[in-house]
């Protein structure tokens, strides 16, 4: 019987198989960010341990940074955030950990910069105290989120005891219609299998529509695997990925590169590989997707309506979600007025996301009542966008243009409270983007269109580029 991509990567990382469904796995990269990373480093020290392989551990400052352009030197957005950043810096230095710090030209959101730097490579196991580490599956790495105790374990041993998950393959087939993106694919999938539908699984995304996605779009797709509770999501690497990574700072070079590519090619799932669950989705008629509730599974086509409660499997949950969102079943999504439009985060703040949004925004204006914010995912994305004049397009349209960081994905930063936001981020949980903030998740193009319209909008009816 053939092996899946996941099986092959798993097998080559097994140090000890405990024979009970768990194994001690070699961890190739440990990433530490300014929230959970500091806790990991604190606890390592408290346990009297030292890093086993400090050169394979990287610190990043992203979550706690102020992103407003006027702030210089940039630091934490609150005094305690500034203190945490200082602590992360100090602990990393003491432990001999490389830190990609605020002033570093490579700074950015962990999951955005890891592929940019070649820190993430195909077939590597990469862990971080951050559930969206699955993003790195977009370049064919196996990345997953861990707790801080597990983080201290990895730091002390460069290994982790892991339960082997079941394997699921989701094949997206057909050609994506115009204005429909990777974000819409993953939101649609979550709507279909539910917010718990991937629990216990590692999901391989495959099929013609996935092969046709560029590398950045694949990172978006994999980013939200965890939103259906799958810890891991990935696309087997191909020539597009190899071209994307060639020459990156931490990627192998010369003969080592050729050897690596040959190895990475061999990792693809065998033709006769068997998955525990298989799902095929035809994307040819897919609409842009937008969420209406407080879970990524509460999603519908942008031209549609909020479904009737009796049509839902989990009506009690949906009812509670709609009460929080201050919405009614049957409401047309296009009738939902928004206060805030946000383009950013590890889901959708790469250069291709910004280009798509800017192409629509060129010559258009954000509705007067909407606060519109764009936060590039990394310093490299920001530089590239500015070289292309995209910052001018965003600002001329009425968007704020910020410094890179996680921004308002995980709090309102004192700016978002009791507002309705359409956001390219990945979580629409209650109070996630600030107290009583009601979040609608969507693609960069749908967010840009909605910013201009002042309500949730279908870009296809607005003369999209």
């Amino acid at each position, binding site marked *: 019987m053939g092996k899946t991509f996941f099986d092959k990567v798993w097998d*080559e990382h097994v*140090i*000890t198989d405990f024979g*009970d*469904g*768990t194994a*001690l796995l*070699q961890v190739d990269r440990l990433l530490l960010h300014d*929230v*959970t990373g500091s*806790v990991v480093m604190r606890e390592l020290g408290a*346990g009297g*341990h030292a890093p086993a392989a400090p*050169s*394979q551990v990287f610190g990043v400052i992203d979550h*706690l940074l102020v992103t407003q352009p006027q702030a210089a030197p940039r630091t934490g957005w*609150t005094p*305690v*955030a500034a203190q*945490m950043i200082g*602590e992360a810096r100090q602990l990393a230095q003491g432990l001999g950990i490389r830190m990609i710090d605020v002033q570093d030209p490579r700074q950015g959101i962990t999951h955005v910069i890891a592929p940019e730097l070649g820190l993430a*490579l195909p*077939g590597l196991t990469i862990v971080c*105290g951050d*559930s969206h580490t699955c993003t790195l599956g977009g370049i064919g790495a196996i990345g*997953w*989120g*861990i*707790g*801080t*105790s*597990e983080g201290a*374990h990895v730091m*002390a*041993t460069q*290994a982790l*005891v892991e*339960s082997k998950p079941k394997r699921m393959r989701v094949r997206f087939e057909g050609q994506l219609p115009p204005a429909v993106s990777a974000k819409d694919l993953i939101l649609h999938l979550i709507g279909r299998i539910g*917010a*718990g539908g991937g*629990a*216990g699984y590692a999901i391989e995304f495959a099929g013609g529509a996935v092969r046709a996605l560029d590398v950045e779009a694949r990172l978006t797709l994999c980013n939200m695997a965890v939103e259906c*509770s*799958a*810890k891991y999501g990935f696309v087997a690497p191909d020539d597009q990925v190899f071209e994307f990574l060639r020459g990156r700072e*931490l*990627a*192998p070079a010369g003969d080592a590169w050729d*050897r*690596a590519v040959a*190895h990475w090619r061999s990792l693809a799932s065998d033709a006769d590989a068997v998955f525990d669950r298989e799902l095929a989705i035809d994307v040819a008629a897919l609409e842009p997707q937008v969420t209406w509730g407080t879970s990524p599974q509460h999603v519908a086509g942008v031209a549609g309506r909020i479904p009737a409660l009796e049509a839902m499997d989990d009506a*009690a*949950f949906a009812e509670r979600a709609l009460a929080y969102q201050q919405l009614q079943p049957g409401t047309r999504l296009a009738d939902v007025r928004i206060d805030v439009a946000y383009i950013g985060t590890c889901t959708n703040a790469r250069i291709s996301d910004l280009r798509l949004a800017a192409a629509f925004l060129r010559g258009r204006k954000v509705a007067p009542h909407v606060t519109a914010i764009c936060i590039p995912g990394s310093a490299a994305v920001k530089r590239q966008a500015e070289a292309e004049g995209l910052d001018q397009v965003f600002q001329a349209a009425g968007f704020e243009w910020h410094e890179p960081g996680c921004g308002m994905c*995980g*709090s309102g930063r004192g700016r978002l409270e009791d507002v309705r936001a359409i956001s390219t981020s990945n*979580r629409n*949980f*209650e*109070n996630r983007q600030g*107290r009583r903030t009601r979040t609608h998740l969507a693609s960069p193009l749908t967010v840009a269109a909605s910013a201009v319209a002042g309500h949730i909008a279908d870009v296809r009816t607005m003369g999209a580029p």
Partner: protein
Amino acid sequence: MESLQQVTAIAAPLMRANVDTDQIIPTRFLARPTEEGLGEGLFAEWAAEPQFLLNQSPWDRAGILLAGANFGCGSSREAAPRALRQRGFRAVLAPSFGDIFFNNCFRNGIVPVRLPQPVVEALAREMRARRSDGTCTLRVDLARCRVEVPATGQAHAFEVPPRLHRMLLEGLDEIALTLAQAAAMQSFRAADRQRRPWAYL
């Protein structure tokens, strides 16, 4: 690591589905110089409402939580089980859990118990019915992998991954266990460096 053999406690029926870790402890409680005090952030947004379950007697003294499916989905924050533990919870019973939260529980003295949805719902009904006479307690016996209703003697078996089971029962130090495998790690890496030199920096 903190061990757990068994716990008998009031079991609060918080039967909401998809309770994510942002609800268990909001992001604003995460940036802090110490892990102490996380309990203050437990369900902080919901707890602001006086009618919230855990604000009411006897549920405010609960040590076991009954919850809906996919409990602890979302963010990897270990602050979620830590906040629960600091507020006295030793077990969470639900039809399913977010995978990262599930793992994190074992390292913080909490057992996450998977039971079929109808069983969790029946236990929740039982606890609500027993609220007034003070017998709304459950016993989770980790050694025997059983949940018992002391008032009726009924019991339900559950399964826990064997390695995590032993770790929690005996309060084992996981890092020490792995470091004891130093020879295996060394020989693996010597061979792996030849096979995958690009993986080593």
